C-alpha cells in the first residue's frame, strides 16, 4: 500500500502539469516544477508515517488509550495490569503457585465470566421479551423460531445460569477446604454467602419468565413456602393471629397478588433484570476489592505446623 501511494503522487502531478502547461506558457513550467517538488515532499512524509504505523504501540493514539508502553520489561508488565481498568483488580504480581489451577479451581473467576456472559445474553434477550401474560410465552416461541440465534441465546442464558449456580457452590466448597475464609478474609466470606443467595435468587426469578407450566409451578411451589413464614405469612406460625391473610402477607408482597399472575411476572422480571443484577454487581465489586485488600488470593500458603500456633489475643 505505501509503495503504491508513493507512485501515485508523481503521476497525479504530471497530469496536473500537462493540464496547466496547455493553458499557460513559460511561467507555467516553473509552476510545474514547484508542484512536483511539493508532491515529492508529501510522498516522503507519507512513506515515513506509514512506516511508523508498523509500531502502533509507539503512536500517541495508542499511548493515549493504554497509558503504558508495551514492552517486556517487568515494569511495563506490571503497569500493563495495574493501569488497565479491567485488569487492575489483579495485583501486578501474584503468588507463583496461585497461577496453577490445582489450588484455585478457577471457580470464582469463571463464575464472574459466566455472569458477564449472562448479562450479555440477558440484555439481548430483553430486546425480544415483554413481561406480560400470553405475550411472554409467545415471545419465547418467537425467540426460538424467529430471532437469529435466538434459540442459542436463550439456551446459553439458561444453561449459563445453571452453570453459574454450580460454579458458585464449588467456589464456596474450595474456599472452605482451603480455609480461605480465615483471618483476614472473614468478611469477604460473608459477602460471598450473600452473593450465593443472590445468584440463587437471580436464577429463581428468571425461572418464571417464559411463563410456561414448568416455571409457573416451580415458582408457585417456591413462593408457597413464603406463605408459611412465621408471623408474616398467613399459613405460618402466629400468622393468622397477627391478622395475615393471603392478601396482605409476605407472599402477596413477593408476587404482587395472591396467585402467580401478571403482576408476579412483572415483579420477577424487574427483580431479575434490574434489581438483583445491580445488587449482585455491587456485592461483586466489594468481593473483588476485598480479595485485593485482604492480601490477594489466599494461597497456596506455606503449611503451618501445630507447634507454631500462637496464643490467641485475649480481650
Amino acid at each position, binding site marked *: 500500500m505505501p509503495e503504491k501511494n508513493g507512485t501515485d503522487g508523481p503521476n497525479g502531478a504530471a497530469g496536473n502539469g500537462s493540464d496547466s502547461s496547455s493553458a499557460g506558457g513559460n511561467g507555467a513550467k516553473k509552476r510545474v516544477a514547484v508542484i512536483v517538488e511539493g508532491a515529492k515532499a508529501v510522498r516522503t512524509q507519507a512513506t515515513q508515517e506509514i512506516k511508523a504505523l508498523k509500531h502502533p504501540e509507539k503512536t500517541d493514539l495508542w499511548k493515549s488509550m493504554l497509558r503504558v508502553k508495551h514492552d517486556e520489561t517487568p515494569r511495563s508488565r506490571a503497569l500493563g495490569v495495574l493501569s488497565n481498568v479491567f485488569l487492575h483488580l489483579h495485583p501486578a504480581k501474584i503468588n*507463583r*503457585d496461585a*497461577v*496453577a489451577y490445582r489450588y484455585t479451581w478457577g471457580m470464582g473467576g469463571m463464575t464472574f465470566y459466566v455472569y458477564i456472559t449472562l448479562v450479555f445474553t440477558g440484555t439481548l434477550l430483553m430486546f425480544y421479551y415483554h413481561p406480560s401474560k400470553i405475550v411472554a410465552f*409467545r415471545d419465547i*416461541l*418467537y425467540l*426460538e*423460531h*424467529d430471532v*437469529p*440465534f435466538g*434459540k*442459542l441465546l436463550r439456551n446459553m442464558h439458561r444453561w449459563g445460569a445453571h452453570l453459574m449456580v454450580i460454579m458458585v457452590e464449588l467456589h464456596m466448597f474450595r474456599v472452605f477446604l482451603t480455609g480461605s475464609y480465615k483471618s483476614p478474609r472473614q468478611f469477604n466470606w460473608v459477602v460471598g454467602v450473600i452473593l450465593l443467595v443472590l445468584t440463587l435468587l437471580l436464577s429463581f426469578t428468571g425461572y418464571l419468565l417464559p411463563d*410456561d*407450566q414448568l416455571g409457573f409451578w416451580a415458582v408457585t411451589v417456591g413462593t408457597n413456602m413464603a406463605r408459611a413464614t412465621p408471623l408474616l405469612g398467613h399459613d405460618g406460625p402466629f400468622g393468622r393471629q397477627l391478622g395475615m391473610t393471603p392478601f396482605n402477607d409476605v407472599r402477596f408482597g413477593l408476587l404482587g397478588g395472591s396467585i402467580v399472575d401478571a403482576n408476579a411476572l412483572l415483579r420477577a422480571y424487574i427483580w431479575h433484570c434490574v434489581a438483583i443484577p445491580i445488587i449482585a454487581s455491587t456485592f461483586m465489586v466489594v468481593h473483588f476489592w476485598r480479595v485485593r485488600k485482604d492480601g490477594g488470593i489466599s494461597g497456596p500458603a506455606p503449611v503451618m505446623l501445630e507447634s507454631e500456633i500462637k496464643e490467641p489475643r485475649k480481650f
Partner: protein
Amino acid sequence: MSDQDQDKDPVVHSSLSRPLFIWSALLLLSLGWALYDEVYGIRPWKSYQSHFSKVYSRYLRSVRPNESTFEKQIQASPEYQKLDRDAEAARKTVAAQVEARDREVKQVLVPQTLALNDPFQEVRSHIGSLTYQIETTNSQSSKESMRREIEQIKKEIHTVKLPMPDGTTKKVDYDYARMDRDLLAWKNRKAQLLQEIVDLQKPYTELLAARDKYLSDRVADVSSGMLAGLLNKMDDFDIGVRQIHIKDVDLVDRCESCHLGTREPVTLTKAAMGGEEVFVSHPNKELLKIHDPEKFGCTPCHGGNGVAVDSIEKAHGSNEHWLWPLHSRENFEAGCQQCHVKEIVTEMAPALNAGRELFRLRGCMGCHRYEGFDREPEEMISVNQQIRQLENQKAEWDREIGFTSDKADRTRDNAEAQRLYQHANDLKVRISGLDAKIEQADMRASNLIREVKKVGPSLKEVRMKMHKEWIPVWLQDPHKWRPGTKMPTFRLDQDDIQAIAAFIWQSGVTGNLPTSSPGDPVKGKESFETRGCMACHSMGEGNDKEGGTFAANLSRVGEKDNYDYLVRWIHNPRERTLPYCPFEKRDLTEADYKKKGVPFVFDMDHSKCPNDGHELQVEQMTPMPSLRLTVEEARDIASYLLTQKHFDATYPAADYLDDPKLKTHGAFLVRYYGCAGCHEISGLEEEQRTGTELTKEGSKPIERLDFALLGHGAEREGWYNHKGFFEHKLQDPAVYDRGKEKPNKLDRLKMPNFNLSKPEIDEVATFLLGSVDSALPERYYFEPTDQRQDVIEGWWVIRKYNCMGCHQVHVGQTTVFMTLPRYQDPDWKDQRPPSLIGEGARVNPAWLMRFLANPALSETDTNRDGVRQYLKARMPTFYFSASEIQKLVRFFAASSSQSMPYIDPKMEAISDQERTMARQLFSSEGAPCLKCHATGDAKHDQRATAPNFLLSKERLKPGWTERWMVHPEMMQPGTAMPSGLFRREGDRWVFAGPTPPSFQNYPRDHADLLVRYMFQFTPEELNRLRASAGAGAGR
C-alpha cells in the same frame, strides 16, 4: 529431561500457546457449528424449498408440451384465426389515427410541457412564499409592498425554448398568466388525445379479449402462458420462509415454507411431485376459497405449531408440551368443529357430520351434555324461567301503577300529578307489551314440549308393546340380537338384567288397545317398501340389509312385538296411552279426567292438564311421523312385520319380571346407568344426564383424561393423546378398567359398548377432537347473523326428522331411496320423493308452511299426499311445532337465497285470447303437459307423474316456474320433466314443438304466457282444459 530443564521455572517457562491454540480452534469450530445450526440445522425447510423448485420445474416442463400443443391446436382453429384476423384488421384500420395522436402526445405535448414546467414552477413557488409572508406579517405596509412584488413577478417575461414538432426549438416569451394557461391547455389536450386513442382502439381490444377468452374457455386447467410464468417463477425461486401473518390474532403460519405446493394454481399430486407428499396441492380448493389462508392461516383448522420451522416434529406440534398437535388424516375435519360448533351439518365435512350424527343418533347425548344437542329440555327450563321473570316484572309494575296513581291523587302540584299519571299510563302500556312477550314465551313452551324427542322408545308402554320374555334377552346383548342397533351393550350380569327387566316391566303403564283383525302381509310388504318406511328403517340381516339406518332394523320385530300395539303404532306412532303432566311429574289416568268431569281425550287440541291447566305431553317422544295410513293399511303392515322373525328363536320364560322384590334394585340400576337419557321411563322423566359434558372435551388437559393403568403403555405406544384416548374408549368403553381392582361392580366404568366400526370411531373421534375451547377470536366462529343462521337452525330440524332419508336437501347428497334396489328401476325412479334442492326458490313460503303442517293439504281427505298424489311414498305428518315449521321454511328460503317474508310478485293479467291460446297449446299433441301432470280426473291421474296445475298459484313462485319449464335439466338432472320444450328466438322463448295456429303472429314470450296461464288457473279453466284435451284427443 536434563538438569537445566529441571531448573527452569515451570510457571514462567512453560508455554500455554498450544492449549490456547487448540481451545481457540475448538471454540471457533463451535462457533462454526452454531452458525451451521442457525443456517441449516434448524432450517430444514431450506432443503425442502430447493427440492421443491427442482421437482416443480421438472413437472411443469413435463406438462408444458402437452398444454402448448393443445393450445396450438386451438389457435389453429378457424374460429380463433378469424378472431385473430379481425383483431388485427381492427387494429390496422385505426392504426394511422392512433399513430397521429400518439405522435402529438409524445413529440409535442410532453416535451413542451417539460420545457415550460421548470420556469413555471420557479415563479409559482416564489409567489407562494411571498403569499405566505403576506399572510403572516402584521405590517400593512410590507403586505402592500409584497403584493406589489407579486404583481411584478407575475408580469416578468420568461423566454422559453419550446421544442417544435419538426425537431427545432422556438423561443417564446411568457408571463406567468400565459404559462399557466398554456400548461393547462396542453394537459387537457393530452388527456383528450389519450382518451381518443383508447376509444379508437376499443374494437381492437375487445376483439383481442374475445380471442383470448376463446382460448382460455377451451383450456381446462392452466394455459401454457401461465405454465411459462410459473416456470419463470421457479427460475428465480428465492429460498426463504413463506409465512402467513394475521396481525390482530398474532397468528404466524409458516406451513407453506415446506408445503410449497398448497396454493399453486396447478394441481399437484404426490406422483407429480416425485413422490413427495409434502408438496401436494390442498385437496379442496373450494374450501380454501371460503377460508382464505391469508385470513384464516393454516393452524386454526389443521392444528400444529405454525411458527415452528425447525423440525417436522415441532412444526406439526407433535412434540411433548405442545397443546395443539396437527390433526391426523382421519380426523382432519376436527378443525371445522371448533368454529362451526353451532352446526349439525357443515358442508364439505362429511366425516364430522357423520360424527355429530352418531353422537345424536346413538344417544351419546342422552348421557353426555353437549351444547346444542338435545337442547329442548334446557330451553324449556329457561323459557319457564323467563315467563316467571316476566310475570314478576308485570306484578311489580302493577304495584307501581297503584302507588304512582295514589301519589298523583294526593300531590298538590298539578304538573307533578300529571307527570305521575303519565308515568302510570306508560307502565300500563308497557305491561301490555309484557303480555305479548309472555304469550310468545308460553307458545314457545308448548312448542318445546312437542319438540322434545328421545333416542329410544318409551319404556312406559312395554307391557302393551312387548313380549315379556324378550326383554332380558335384549338387555343381555342388544347387538347380538340386532347387530348395529342404537342400544348399546351394558356391562350387566344376570342379576342386574333381571332387576332392570323387572323394574321396566312393572313400571310400564297399561291401557286398552283396540283389538285388530289380521291384515294381509303381502300387501303390507308392498306398503312397507313403497310408502317410505324404508327411508328410516332397514329390513333384512347381514348383507341383505336394505333401507335407512336412522331408525331400527325391523327384521326380527315379529319376535318381540304385540300385534295390536303395532297396528296402533303404525297408524299413528305419536299416540300415547296416557298423557304425562310435567308439573305433577306423573302420567294422568282416566280417573284424573273423570274427577274433573272432562272426557278422557288428549291430543294437540286438548293438551292442558285437567288438574292444573299445565301443558301436557300428549305425544310419544319419537321423531317417527304418521304416514296417514288407513287402519287397514296399518294392519297389513303390522301383519307383514310380524312375519319378520327367526322361526327357531326361543325365549326362556321370564316370570321374575313380575317379582316386586326386584323392582327397587332395578330402579336403582336404571337410574345408575342413565337409561332415562334415551328412554321415557315412569318416575324417571326428570333424570339428569349421568356422563361428563363433552362440549370442550377435545381441549381438556391430557392429565385430566383418566388413562388409568394404561397411561404408561399409551405413552410408549404413542397414543397418549386425546385421539388415542377417544379411540380406545370408543372401541371398548371399559378399556380403562383394564387391570384395575374393582370388586364392587358399581365402581366400574359404566359407559356401555356401542360396537362402533372403525370408520364410525374415527368420525366420533373427529367430532370430539374438534370440541375444543378455541383460542381463536370471536370473529372466526361461524355465527352468522344473516340468512346463513337460518340454514344452521334448519339443519337441526332436518336431521332430527331425517328429511334426507327421502329428499335431497343439499347438492351431492344421496337419499336412502336412491339406494333401494326397487327404486333403481326406470319406472320406479320417478317414484322417488322429490328433491328439495332449490325448494326455497320454488315454493311460496306461506304454502310451504301450510304443507308442512298438513302434508295432505286437507283436513278431511288425509289418506293422500297433498301435492304428488301419484307417489306411493308419502310425505308424512310430522306434527311439527310452530317453531320447527318456521325454522324449516326459513331454512329453505335461506338455502335458496330467498328473502323473507315473501311478497307475491305482481303478475300481468292474462287476456282471454291469451288464455285460449295457452289452453290450445296445453291440449295439443305437440305439448305433452297434460300427459304427466295431474288434472283431478281420477282415470287420468292414475297415470299422472306430476302435480296438478291448480296448485301452481298458491304453491309456486312464477320466476322459478319459468326457469323450470325452460331448463328443468339444470335444476334436476334426470328429472321426468323433459328439457328442450322451448327454444330461444331473439329475446324470447318459443315453444319448440308445433304450436296451434292462434300462435301465429303472437310476438311475446311463450314461456311467460304459460306461466301467467298457470298462475291464473282456476278449477273452471281446468274443466275447460280437460274438455278441450279430450276433444283434442278425439281429433
